[in-house]
């Protein structure tokens, strides 16, 4: 599927003095995909995004788009557009002028500018608010305006820096559906930085997990979740248990832990009812915590209480060996 239009990072490095923020990462973002850069804070994901946007200089390596090296071009000449974490809307301009700001900078006349702004505002359903100032909008509305402003430049790649972090949880879920819809409609690459794995799973075609300045694992969302390569990915993506068996670490999905008569013996430490599932945490004899998500009906046919001894088992095929 890869084509010349792809965005590619080649040995991309960012150093601040002696500290390395991004260490020789290589990745090819397929055109028209929704990619999430996922990782804990300080892992280098934001720096990577800002280098692609052109707001941070590249220490080493290069960024290519469409076969051209864009590493040293100014932000507006790269074919990328960025949506900032705090939206960075110009407080003195109304919504229409915010959206058409880049066209004004290019010297496009007013009528044309406003027409383009109107189209973008239609795309994000904000036409009714064109004359308002940013301060008169809610967080979600500001975010749509920021999206429209980024998209009006017709970018090849839209860069989103933690776009949902300023919204409340309810709105976050609504807005992420909106983002996904927009990406499908526009067919351009969205590169979305986040530290929330649920957000990444919900949105991304592809997930790039970063840790300690390098890419830990990358691939289709399902592949990353189902087959974490390292202990870090297994723990960060959640829903997995990491246990030691025969001297090596293995990952086991919490919903594939079975309660049986034989198997790994453990003691129940807590039981939490979550609706469809019951989350039962237990401690093995080796002192490792294992979380089991047991379907509600199964659990209550043979309920357990903290302190009870249980035997944990699983299908051998579902165990997943981790790289050391």
């Amino acid at each position, binding site marked *: 599927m890869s084509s010349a239009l792809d965005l590619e990072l080649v040995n991309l490095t960012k150093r601040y003095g002696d500290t390395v923020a991004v260490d020789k990462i290589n990745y090819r973002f397929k055109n028209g995909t929704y990619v999430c850069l996922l990782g804990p804070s300080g892992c280098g994901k934001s720096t990577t995004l800002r280098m692609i946007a052109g707001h941070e200089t590249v220490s080493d390596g290069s960024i290519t788009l469409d076969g051209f090296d864009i590493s040293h071009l100014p932000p507006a000449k790269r074919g990328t557009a960025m949506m*900032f974490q705090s939206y960075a809307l*110009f407080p003195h301009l109304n919504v229409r002028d915010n959206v058409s*700001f880049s066209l004004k*900078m290019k010297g496009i006349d007013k009528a044309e500018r406003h027409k383009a702004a109107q189209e973008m505002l239609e795309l994000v359903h904000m036409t009714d608010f064109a004359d308002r100032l940013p301060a008169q909008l809610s967080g979600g509305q500001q975010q749509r305006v920021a999206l429209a*402003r980024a998209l009006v430049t017709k970018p090849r790649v839209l860069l989103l820096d933690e776009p949902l972090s300023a919204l409340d949880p309810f709105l976050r879920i609504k807005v992420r559906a909106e983002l996904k819809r927009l990406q499908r409609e526009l067919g351009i690459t969205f590169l979305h930085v986040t530290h929330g794995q649920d957000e990444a799973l919900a949105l991304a075609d592809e997930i790039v997990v970063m840790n300690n300045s390098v890419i830990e694992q990358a691939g289709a969302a399902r592949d990353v979740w189902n087959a974490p390569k390292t202990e870090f990915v297994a723990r960060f993506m959640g829903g997995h248990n990491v246990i030691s068996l025969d001297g090596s670490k293995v990952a086991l999905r919490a919903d594939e832990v079975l309660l049986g008569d034989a198997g790994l013996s453990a003691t129940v430490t807590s039981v939490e009812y979550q609706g469809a599932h019951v989350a039962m945490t237990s401690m093995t004899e080796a002192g490792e915590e294992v979380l089991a998500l047991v379907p509600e009906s199964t659990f209550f046919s043979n309920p357990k209480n903290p302190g009870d001894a249980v035997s944990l088992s699983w299908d051998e095929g579902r165990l997943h060996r981790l790289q050391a």
Partner: protein
Amino acid sequence: MLKNRHIQGWLQASPLTLVLLGFLILPIITIVVVSFWQATEFSIIPAFSFENYEFLFGSPVTYKVFFATFKYAFITWAMTLAIGFTVAYYLAFHIRSQTLQIALFLLCTIPFWTSNIIRMISWIPFLGRNGIANSALQSWGIIDQPLEWLLYSDFSVILAFVHLYTLFMVVPIFNTMTRIDHSLIEAARDNGASGFQTLVHVILPLTKPGIMIGTIFVLTLVMGDFITVRFMSGSQKANVGRLISNDISLLQYPSAAATAVILLITVLIVIGILLRFVDIRKEL
């Protein structure tokens, strides 16, 4: 209970009210009242007469002097704005470390630890006929004759004004600029704005309230000044302040009061017009 709370409120507001009444409202009322009195060379007569105003508006000197006052105010404003904006911009956007920012800002204020008069008078030996400026220019061979317009001229008056009042422009502009979110500048760059376009379309509009506060400071200071004009022009130039101070030295209080009332009204009108352009409330 409700009545009690009313009394409490009045009591809490009263100290400031009394201070303002005694030291602001009362003096202004007195000036207005006195401006209607009559005066001869040797006596002042309480009356209600428009004599002072008639004389003021009837004299071509008044218009000339008011014009000169506006001229000083406008030129000083333009120059303090240009310098103040540049200094504040440099401090706010080019100095990355906050410690250095504060250090440089304090450096700007050091000249202001000395009295106004001393800073003004120090220009005189520098600018004089045989002063440092003239002798330096002559020894470099740039001029043959000493420049006469350096001292005791509009040039020296405005130079002193700019020197004295630029900080009043730097402080509010710097204050507004430091509150501009740096991601806005990145956003402008992301939208293809050049450095100059960012300055004109983003930084300048967002700095307007600070510029307006600085403008009010500088305009009121320059329009009310008399001592700078007297010293730096060697008593050869006049502005409204000097008109008033001359009247006072001749004990013509009613006439001085009338001029003061007109000056006050003029300044208030100017500020009123300025405030229509920019909302400074969010800065206060």
